[in-house]
Each structure stands twice: as C-alpha cells, then as structure tokens.
C-alpha cells in the first residue's frame, strides 16, 4: 500500500480517540457486576443488532473474505447469507427470548440448570480455551495487517491494539463493547462501501463490471483448459458469480459443506450457542429488544457480502494476476482511494479488528468470573466483588493475548491452522447438547455429558486422521477430499453427539419433571412490554 498522508492519520486518530472516549465515558457509569457483564440489562435492539454484525466480522474476515472471493468467487458470501440469516431469524423467535427470560448470564450456566455441573464445566472449558487462543490469533493476525498498512512494527501494533481495546473493555464492560461496536459497524460498512462504489465506478458501471467478470472467467477457463489438456485432467472451473458450487468442485465451499455443515449446524451453533454473540442479547432491556436485535442483525447481514466479498470480485477483474487473494483488498485501496479516504478505510479496518477482540475479551471474562470463580470458589460473591474480578480477569486476558500472540510469532503456520480449526472441534457437539437440552425433555445430563465429550474427541480424531503425516504413516487415503474440510468435521461431530445423546437418554433415568420445568422450550405465546 502507498504511504499515508497527514489527512489519513488524522482520520484514524479521530476514530481511535472517539472510540476510547466513548468507552471510558460508559466505564465511568459502571457500578456493579450486572452493569459490567450484562450492561445492567438496558441495551436497546438497534445497538445490539449492529454490535452482533460488528463482532462477527473481524479485520481478518474483511481481508480474508475479499481474498476468498478473488480466488474462489462469490460462494464465500454463503457464510454471511444462508450461513447467518435463517439461523438468526429462528434464534430471534425461538431461542433468544427463551434465554433472556431464563435470566442466565452465560450459556454454560443454562447447561447446569438444564443438565448438570459437568456439562456446564465441559462447555465452559471449551469456550475459554477457544476464546483465549483466538484472542492471541486475532491480535497477531491483525497486527501483521496493520504492520503492512500503517508501517509500524508488528510488536508495536500488538501493544497498541491490546492497550486501546483493553482500556475501554476493562473500563466499560459489555455496554462499552456494544456501543463502540455500533460505531465500528457504521465505519466498517461505510469504509468497505466506499471501496465497492469507487471500484465499480472505476470499471465503468455495474454492466461493465459483470461483463468484465465473464471475460476474465473466459480467459482463466482457456488457460486452465490448456493446462488440463497437457496434464490430462478434467475441466473443474466454476463461475465466480455462483453461490452454489458442485459437491466435487475444487473449492473449500462445495454445496454439501455449505448446506449441511454451515447452514444446518455451524451457523445455528454460532448464533444460538456462542457466548460472545448471545451475551449482548442477554443484556437487552426487554425480551422484545432481544428478538428485534437479531432481526435487525439479519437485515444488516444481507448487506455484508456486498461490501466485503464483491470488492474481491472487483480485484479479480482488476488484478487477475494476484496469486495471494489476501492482497486483493490492499491492492484495491492503493489504487482506488485518495488521501483521507484511505484513512477512513483503515479506520474501518481497525474498527473490525477492535470489535471482535473486545467482544471475546468481555465474554471470556464473563465465563471465567461466572462459570469458574463464582461457581466453584465464591458462590456468595457480591455484585461489587464480581465487578472487580471481571475487570481483573479482563486485564489478565489482555496480558495473556499479548503473550500468546508473541508465542505464535515464533511458531510455524501449522499452529495457526490448528487453532483456527478449534471452533469446528466443539461447535457441532455444543449445538447437539443445546438443541436436545432446549427442545427435548427426555434428554438427560449423563447423556449430554458423554455425547459432548465423545463428539469433541471424534472431531479431533477426524482432524488428526486427515493430516498428511498421519494418514501417510497409517497407509491410508485422506478422509476428506477438499483442502479445508472444517465444515465436515462439524457435521460428523454433531451427528455422533446427537445420536449418542438420544441413545443414552433412553437408556438412563429421565430427569425429574420439576428440574426441567421452564428450561425446555414450548411455543406458547408470551407478551412482554417493549
């Protein structure tokens, strides 16, 4: 990227000072643990909805989605469309109001009420390991990108990000996270929209853009045909504007993975069971606000691929020679944006980065405080002491994230891949216990615990067996025939967990009716004031 002007730095500085100021102002009003972890249950739907979207899209996602669109086409948009919208709508009317009414602070807490403390602890451990590792990964990946864009050293970028996000998250808790996310959502969408509009204008308009994609696809098809004729392989080229790709296409997004893995399992597991996502709707000021936030988020989600993935297609036309898709966005910014606007996009990039890290910090701190400290150490802890513990844990998590990101810098890229696959290890089993617990009275605690543990072990076994050194030593073929089969891990882990829960539940004594009362969903209308 070309160097930044004074105007660019001024725009970035204004954004950072504004975010920090707002976070600290909100922090000055926090008095209790309930204020800190659930924003005093006063959050409005419009702020939560925008925060949901901002949390879901990190800086790595902006660059990665644009890059994937450049390499594999529009199919990457499935992650934001069918991989979000239907699950968010169902969550809005079925699951979220149920959680809000139950008054829990964390999803593992619901698991203890419904099943037992073993299920709560197992789920909490998985989430805390995932979030803690992910904090380091996000910090490092974002610092590497900031280093390219801002010209600062990677170390300095890690310290700067951790300091800025840490200050307002430690101070303001969930309320600061949600309200700063809201601003970050506007800046993020605005910045990406700018790249989209200028890119289409640069290509001569929408019709010319479409024609240019077809022309570029034709060029690539001819090139691939010539290569395939030499090597004797069949033509596997798929359209760059297709959302639905064949099951045997050479892409990480075949329709089977997208439909069965993403739309039916990973997406509902994420929107219903991810503590970082659900926590903000638990802080809604009413049940209606909790529902409306998810619907508003679903509406916004329709827009996200347009501003994030379509610029990748613009780069596909403008820079077809790029071999690293992750360079698509930086190249577009260098070529399209004038001084000042370049700063606005980088502010959007920082916004995306900060909105994800602050959410994971706050949610990880909530899980440690409620599911470990309060549950096992101080059951009678006062609200004020929980606030102190929450802030201390958030501070320690910031230190951990810094340390872990430096540790990752010294490791090979393989470590990255393992941690990025962490979520796929336990999301399927977590969704299985959530679904059976919420919808099936007969599901028992022992069945849920065994189903969850076996499901997690099964997905780890699938991952291990699919590693080249392992299957080569064992003299086997790889289990999956696509390069990044994490969607398939989730499907199989879910199927194994779900089946075990059903079978073991029938073999074990049912939970007493008084234990499950009010904890299993029924579609009885319930009016609540706005």
């Amino acid at each position, binding site marked *: 990227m070309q160097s930044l002007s004074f105007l660019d730095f001024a725009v970035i500085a204004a954004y950072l000072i504004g975010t920090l100021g707002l976070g600290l102002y909100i922090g000055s009003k926090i008095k209790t643990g309930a204020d800190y972890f659930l924003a005093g249950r006063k959050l409005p739907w419009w702020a939560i909805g925008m925060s949901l979207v901002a949390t879901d899209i990190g800086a790595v996602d902006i660059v990665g989605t644009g890059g994937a669109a450049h390499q594999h086409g529009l199919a990457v948009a499935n992650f934001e469309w069918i991989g979000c919208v239907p699950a968010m709508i*169902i969550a809005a009317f079925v699951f979220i109001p149920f959680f809000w009414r139950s008054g829990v602070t964390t999803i593992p807490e619901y698991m203890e009420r419904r099943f037992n403390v073993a299920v709560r602890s197992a789920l909490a451990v998985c989430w805390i390991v995932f979030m803690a590792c992910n904090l380091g990964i996000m910090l490092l990946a974002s610092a590497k990108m900031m280093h390219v864009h801002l010209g600062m050293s990677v170390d300095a970028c890690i310290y700067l990000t951790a300091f800025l996000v840490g200050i307002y998250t430690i101070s303001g808790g969930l309320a600061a996270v949600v309200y700063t996310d809201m601003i970050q959502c506007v800046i993020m969408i605005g910045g990406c929209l700018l790249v989209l509009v200028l890119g289409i204008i640069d290509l001569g308009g929408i019709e010319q853009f479409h024609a240019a994609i077809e022309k570029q696809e034709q060029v690539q098809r001819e090139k691939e045909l010539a290569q395939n004729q030499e090597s004797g392989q069949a033509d596997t080229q798929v359209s760059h504007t297709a959302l639905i790709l064949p099951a045997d296409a050479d892409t990480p997004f075949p329709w089977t993975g997208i439909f069965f893995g993403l739309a039916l399992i990973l997406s509902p597991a994420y929107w219903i069971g991810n503590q970082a996502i659900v926590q903000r709707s638990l802080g809604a000021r009413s049940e209606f606000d909790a529902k409306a936030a998810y619907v508003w988020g679903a509406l916004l989600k329709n827009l996200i691929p347009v501003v994030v993935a379509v610029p990748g297609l613009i780069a596909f036309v403008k820079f077809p020679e790029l071999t690293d898709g992750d360079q698509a966005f930086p190249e577009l910014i260098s070529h399209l944006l004038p001084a000042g606007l370049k700063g606005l996009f980088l502010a959007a990039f920082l916004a995306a980065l900060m909105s994800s890290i602050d959410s994971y910090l706050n949610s990880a701190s909530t899980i440690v405080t409620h599911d470990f400290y309060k549950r096992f150490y101080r059951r009678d802890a006062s609200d004020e002491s929980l606030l102190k513990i929450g802030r201390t844990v958030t501070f320690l998590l910031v230190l951990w994230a810094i340390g872990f990101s430096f540790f990752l810098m010294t490791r090979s890229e393989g470590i990255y891949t393992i941690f990025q696959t962490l979520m796929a290890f336990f999301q399927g089993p977590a969704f299985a216990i959530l679904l059976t617990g919420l919808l099936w009275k007969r599901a028992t605690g022992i069945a849920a615990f065994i189903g969850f543990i076996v499901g997690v072990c099964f997905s780890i076994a699938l991952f291990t067996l699919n590693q080249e050194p392992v299957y080569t030593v064992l003299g086997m073929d790889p289990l999956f025939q696509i390069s990044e089969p994490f969607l398939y891990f989730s499907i199989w882990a879910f199927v194994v967990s779900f089946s075990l829960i059903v079978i073991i539940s029938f073999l074990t004594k049912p939970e007493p009716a008084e234990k499950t009362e009010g904890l299993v969903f029924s579609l009885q209308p319930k009016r*609540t004031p*706005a």
Partner: protein
Amino acid sequence: MTPLHHIGNFIRALVVPIPLWCVRALFLGTLIAVFIWVLRLPRENTTPENATHWYQNLKIWACLALAIQIVIYSIF
C-alpha cells in the same frame, strides 16, 4: 481403507450426481420454509405488548430479510 472411508465414499457417490438445480431448490426450499414459519408465528410472539404501529411487528422485517435471501439465491 477404514470404515470411515467407506461411509465417506458412499455418501460422496450419493451427492455428487445431484444436479445443481435440485440443490438450488433445496436452498430456496429451506429459505421459503423459514419464511412461511415466520408468517405463521402468533402476533403475540412478534410484537411488543403496547405496539401501536405496523412497523413494530418483527414479522415484517424478518420476512424482508428472508425475501432478500430468496431473491439472491434465485439469481446467483
């Protein structure tokens, strides 16, 4: 070859020949099913108690989000 390979190959052999128009119908059918489910939700579940305006009914906005999806998956 482990039993897992045999199961995988069997499922792959089942899904690979499915034509893409059938898959598109599956995607659209899922979205339409959710759309109809939202339309059939009781009004009490989608509006606040003291609602006075049409736009306070979440059903409208949920249906709009799903309708956009249906259009997108019909075209691309």
